[in-house]
């Protein structure tokens, strides 16, 4: 297992909804827990992954995610079991969209 932490500043979008989890910790899948949190305007992402050694790819995927949504005061926690970057991006978008009232 490997734990990765990212923190992004300069977000503008704050989420109001209650904490929510999407996805399942199964092979090639992940769960994303998304919560509003007082983080001084930052968006933090903590990833616990079974796939060790993919830090640079996670960082790129997280950077893209932050640019898409520009979240502020949001804590995201991920339990991953070897999801591909595309699956990770889709799940994270699903998490945000659920918080914004989509489904």
């Amino acid at each position, binding site marked *: *297992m490997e734990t990765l932490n990212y923190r992004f500043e300069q977000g503008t979008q704050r989420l109001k909804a209650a*904490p929510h*989890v999407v996805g*399942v*910790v*199964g092979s090639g*899948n992940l*769960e994303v*827990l998304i*919560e509003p949190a007082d983080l001084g305007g930052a968006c933090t992402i903590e990833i*616990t*992954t*079974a796939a060790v050694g993919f830090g640079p790819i996670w960082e790129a995927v997280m950077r893209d995610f932050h640019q898409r949504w520009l979240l502020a005061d949001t804590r995201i*926690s991920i*339990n*991953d*079991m070897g999801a591909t970057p595309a699956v990770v991006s889709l799940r994270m978008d699903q998490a945000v969209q659920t918080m914004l009232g989509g489904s």
Partner: protein
Amino acid sequence: MGSYQEANARERLQQLFDPNSFEEFLPPSQRVVSPHLGQLNAPVAFDDGVAVGRAKLGGITVYTAAQEGGFMGGAVGEVHGAKLVGLLRRAVRDHVAAVVLLVESGGVRLHEANAGLIAVSEVMRALLDVRAAGIPVVVLVGGSNGAFGGMGIVSRCANVVVMSEEGRLAMSGPEVIETASGVEEFDSRDRALVWRTNGGKHRYLMGDCQRIVADDIAAFREAAREALAALAGHQAELTLETLEAEQQMLDERITRFGALPDPVDIWSAMHIADAANIPMLDVDSFIAAAGQHRLGV
């Protein structure tokens, strides 16, 4: 409405109960995760693979749990089991109208060894305590991981089991039987044989489940509602008479069918017309064909 089998645990909770009525106890944001998996360098889930809480079913408040088959096959670890036990004990304390368990589990989570085994036995005891308090328990089995091992036993402790044909209910899973007794005994790769043996239709004919529905969340919802309505006013407690009747049914079953190698042979021996075609029937035609032939109550 969609497939029950393809939905995950949280989707089932959202779609099976009245809209937005599910209120979770110990939600994922509380991060009550397994203390064992981390030590084994294995991934954890924020809900340890089970969501527990209260929800409304046709306006009636029930307590409910949904196991997530996608996380370690729904296997019961220490925290997972403790959440189930806590839910069941709280059901007794709060005199809730009923408990509806969405079971999907391979049984004990072997990573957690004795803690998992103890957890499952505590779930059984807690479930029987719920019934002894006069509260009926309905179990739904329709996930792709079925209800096996300890959770198979837990399921059969309920007042009513509702299954789809795709759901499976048994003690040892097919691969366990094949490993222990050889491929001649049970070929776990023969999917038709596996579902003929463990699937909802055979369980319904054998009296191991009381209702069978199509693989559809709305159908499970309706069956759960009907089951609770039918149980209202009846004794929920498991009595000695019921246990003895069950034992007698099992004795007769092994006497009548114990030597038969395949469920189709059993269905023929039960005088079901065109037994070989049973797996091909849709659920309504199947229930009609099962008619008075099926065992149990």
